[in-house]
């Protein structure tokens, strides 16, 4: 797997059809999930993925391979999905429009009332080790996770989807989003905490 994406990209630029088919199959799931973080409708998300590949094909000659194929194509997905989301802004609820979150503001990510005045847990969080994997990763739980991600401020959503859903490394994500490593961690922290809270509401 050493430099697999580099040679993958080379193959595509050479016009290797088998390599292209392999890439569109392998990345379809992650690209779709990435798109779904912005556009809720499955069909629209499918469109976004398709448009991203068409854009990529048209730009293959010009792409110099500073990043891996995966990072590059995910970046294209984000740009297209963001544009679609803006177009379909009817999804933005009134409260979301009114919310003026500063996504990077440092507020506690855990409800302060869960700690004593001295800063210790009042009650210990539940042991999810005892939750069956079929429940934790079940359809309902996954819907809660998806909904929690959709509700995040855009800056948090970008980071968590790229890092935790699409499983890109920290370096490429900082580059894609044009943010510092520290800034990325702050956003990731807030985003993960929000998704954890949603799961806790469901699992207890």
């Amino acid at each position, binding site marked *: 797997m050493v430099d697999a994406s580099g040679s993958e990209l080379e193959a595509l630029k050479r016009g290797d059809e088998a390599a292209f088919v392999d890439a569109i199959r392998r990345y379809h799931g992650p690209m779709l999930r990435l798109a779904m973080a912005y556009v809720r409708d499955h069909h629209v998300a499918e469109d976004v993925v398709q448009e991203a590949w068409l854009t990529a*094909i048209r730009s293959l000659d010009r792409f110099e391979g500073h990043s891996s194929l995966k990072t590059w194509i995910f970046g294209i997905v984000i740009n297209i999905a963001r544009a679609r989301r803006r177009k379909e802004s009817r999804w933005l609820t009134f409260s979301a429009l009114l919310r003026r979150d500063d996504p990077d503001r440092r507020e506690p990510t855990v409800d302060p009332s869960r700690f004593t005045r001295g800063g210790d847990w009042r009650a210990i969080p539940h042991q999810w080790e005892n939750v069956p994997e079929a429940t934790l990763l079940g359809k309902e739980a996954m819907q809660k996770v998806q909904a929690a991600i959709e509700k995040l401020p855009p800056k948090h959503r970008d980071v968590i989807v790229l890092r935790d859903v699409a499983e890109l490394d920290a370096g490429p994500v900082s580059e894609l989003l044009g943010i510092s490593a520290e800034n990325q961690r702050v956003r990731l922290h807030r985003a993960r905490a929000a998704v*954890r809270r949603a799961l806790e509401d469901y699992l207890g």
Partner: protein
Amino acid sequence: MKCREVVELMTDYLEGALAARDRERFEQHISGCDGCRAYLAQLRATLRAMKSFEDVPIPHRVQEELVQAFRDWRATGC
């Protein structure tokens, strides 16, 4: 370190971004604190959930169209 502070360091910890000394203090706290250990386990479970969205096969029609576009690009360079 208080639990209230420890929970806010968990992403830095998981990302390997804590300075050696902070990391030591963090781990020391965790090893003696059931609450923070449970919270960290919940965060890890959350990560596992996000990584396990079901894989989606590419629709046949989409694959055909993309392959055609790829062939066109190869043939004409645009």
